């Protein structure tokens, strides 16, 4: 056997095999190889001491108990020499003391054994050093020296059982603990209460070990009383609210004036009076306003972002701003109602009045997805005094792209529709009808109440320049930049992104044009084209909300009133 193999005995068998193989493979010199093994062995020993158990076993129990039990061993030995064996009372007392010594030593040994494991050698040394010290100083002539070590026999037995990983049954442990405690108190052996406590605690430790951990935890919680209710209060909450608006009474199409929203309140919200910034969220109108919470577990993701300090605690409001045809486009329209006013005059004041918000633009952000992103950027343009930070996830309606807009909808449908339902049969046409209702409304023209950008004349399509100009001016964010550049420049943070592989390339080209035009006007902003398709897992842990939106708000929102 080489010195290397001998050194390797310090390691556990599995480590030994792997390390010797690795050393052989990397052709280390013998000296270096031995150093590597020693390094490993030292690290392993040290790591054991990062736990409280070996410290308690060696220095909290083995060392002091060794002193006490030696003293008690001598006391019993002396008692033995003076006991009249005909006196049953004295005999009984001696038996009791012997039993007590055995109990203390055994339970102490058991606890040391089960706590020490791989550091047992240190615990053993801690117990034996006092023994050597006392043996060398022993000076009672009537007793043999080995009397000092009476306690060792039951102690070693206890260590063996404890080290073997046995656990005591709960009933056994309780009986043992009560017995030893009663005997200890009855015996009133000389020594302070601290000494008594030191000898008794291992037996109660056994009881605790015998119980199931969860039971122990429940008892602990029951004792603390408030702990479980405290724990519940620290979770985040999702509350549903509705707000009755006055902004839709003039609408020409049926709009529910009671608007729904879902509000995310961060962990610890109800337990504190702290005020939080608010992120308003405009979801894609293709799904319900709470689908991100109901189907995509947005709550966990927001919790996670707060938990990882991606962002400090915040309130998150997702609100329904849809019309019968889909999107309201977040504007005041003589046909669909005053959505912009609803947001600025009603929703934001409602949230500030009903939740613990930081009611200032620096602590208010707005984000949205797809058409919602359009809305977020539009609100940032028009109301930078309300929303200080803006993030748009894959905005649409930012510009004209490459396809000519009037070629997209079905003009037969738009011209001849008898009701809103006639339009809804065609998906793309529905979207365009919602655009026209928002941006070129005409309250005099039922049932769609829109000005037509183009009209069929036989097979030909005749484009109305005036309506087209009005549409472009009202609708495209790109067209709005000159007017609102100063507002955009005043934002604390402004970012949008888009997926490169949206099958509608117009969205990609429009966003590329938008960022360039913002640069032309010197508007600071971030704009990311990422590799993906629109809507791909925005709400997963690798989605844009977690990787980009929340960190962005984390950097730009103000999280305290100071």
């Amino acid at each position, binding site marked *: 056997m080489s010195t290397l193999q001998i050194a390797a005995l310090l390691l556990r068998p599995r480590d030994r095999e792997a390390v010797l*193989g*690795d*050393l052989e493979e990397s052709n280390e010199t013998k000296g270096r190889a031995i150093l590597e093994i020693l390094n490993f062995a030292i690290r392993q020993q040290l*790591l054991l001491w990062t736990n409280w158990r070996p410290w308690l076993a060696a220095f909290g129990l083995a060392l002091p108990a060794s002193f006490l039990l030696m003293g008690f061993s001598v006391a019993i030995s002396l008692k033995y020499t003076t006991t009249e064996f005909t006196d049953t009372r004295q005999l009984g007392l001696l038996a009791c003391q012997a039993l007590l010594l055995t109990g203390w030593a055994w339970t102490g040994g058991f606890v040391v054994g089960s706590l020490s494991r791989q550091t047992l050698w240190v615990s053993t040394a801690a117990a034996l050093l006092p023994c050597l010290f006392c043996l060398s100083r022993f000076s009672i002539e009537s007793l043999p020296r080995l009397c000092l070590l009476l306690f060792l026999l039951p102690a070693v037995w206890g260590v063996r059982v404890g080290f073997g990983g046995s656990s005591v049954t709960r009933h056994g442990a309780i009986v043992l603990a009560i017995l030893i405690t009663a005997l200890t108190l009855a015996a009133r052996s000389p020594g302070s209460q601290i000494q008594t406590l030191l000898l008794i605690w291992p037996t109660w430790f056994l009881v605790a070990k015998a119980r199931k951990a969860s039971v122990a935890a429940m008892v602990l919680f029951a004792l603390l009383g408030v702990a479980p209710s405290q724990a519940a209060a620290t979770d985040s909450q999702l509350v549903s609210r509705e707000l009755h608006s006055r902004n839709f009474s003039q609408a020409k199409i049926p709009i529910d004036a009671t608007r729904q929203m879902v509000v995310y309140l961060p962990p610890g919200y109800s337990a504190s009076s702290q005020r939080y910034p608010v992120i308003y969220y405009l979801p894609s109108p293709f799904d319900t306003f709470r689908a991100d919470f109901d189907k995509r577990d947005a709550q966990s993701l927001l919790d996670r972002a707060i938990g990882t300090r991606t962002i400090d605690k915040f309130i998150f409001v997702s609100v329904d701003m849809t019309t019968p045809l889909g999107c309201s486009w977040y504007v005041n329209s003589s046909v669909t109602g005053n959505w912009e006013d609803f947001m600025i005059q009603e929703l934001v004041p409602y949230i500030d009045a009903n939740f613990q918000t930081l009611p200032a633009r620096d602590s208010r952000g707005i984000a949205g997805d797809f058409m919602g992103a359009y809305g977020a950027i539009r609100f940032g343009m028009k109301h930078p005094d309300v929303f200080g930070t803006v993030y748009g996830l894959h905005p649409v309606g930012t510009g004209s792209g490459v396809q000519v807009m009037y070629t997209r909808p079905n003009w037969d449908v738009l011209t001849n529709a008898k009701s809103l339902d006639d339009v809804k049969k065609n998906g793309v046409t529905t979207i365009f009808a919602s655009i026209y209702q928002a941006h070129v409304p005409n309250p005099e023209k039922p049932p769609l109440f829109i000005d037509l950008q183009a009209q069929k004349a036989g097979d030909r399509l005749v484009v109305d320049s005036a309506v087209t100009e009005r549409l472009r001016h009202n609708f495209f964010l790109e067209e709005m930049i000159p007017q609102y550049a100063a507002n955009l420049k005043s934002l604390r943070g402004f970012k949008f992104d888009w997926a490169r592989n949206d099958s509608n390339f117009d969205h990609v080209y429009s966003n590329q044009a938008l960022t360039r035009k913002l640069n032309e006007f010197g508007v600071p902003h*971030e704009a990311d084209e990422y590799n993906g398709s629109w809507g791909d897992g925005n709400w997963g842990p*690798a989605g844009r909300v977690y990787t980009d939106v929340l960190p962005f708000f984390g950097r730009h929102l103000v999280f305290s009133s100071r």
Partner: protein
Amino acid sequence: MSLVPLSSPAKIIVDALADYYYNVSIMLGEFEYLLITAAASLADKAYGASIRDEIDATTGRKCSLGALYTTLDRLEAKGLVETWMADATPQRGGRSKRMVRVTPKGVQAAADFYDAVTRVSRGASWVAKPTGSAS
């Protein structure tokens, strides 16, 4: 940190305590991250010696086997990697390899670490400015 290969016992003690404090108490540590990343890139060829060589090749510093295996134990206890003993090969003197595979949880932890480092580094003087933003 633990990359210092072989030195005085005092250094080893300080290293071990620092490792413990950072890696157990706070988050995935620098060395744990290096180890997971090396193991992930080696895929089914990840084991003690190959991971050590990979870390050596990318950082220019050779870690001790002790640091490597104790960290591996910790990562395994945290469920971030799985390890198992594979077949013996002749160039290892007939000894088995301890093979390593990064678990999905490990991948997530590494991604979180990368995320945190990237985030905390934003705006630091040694980080290249992002392109495309208007000034």
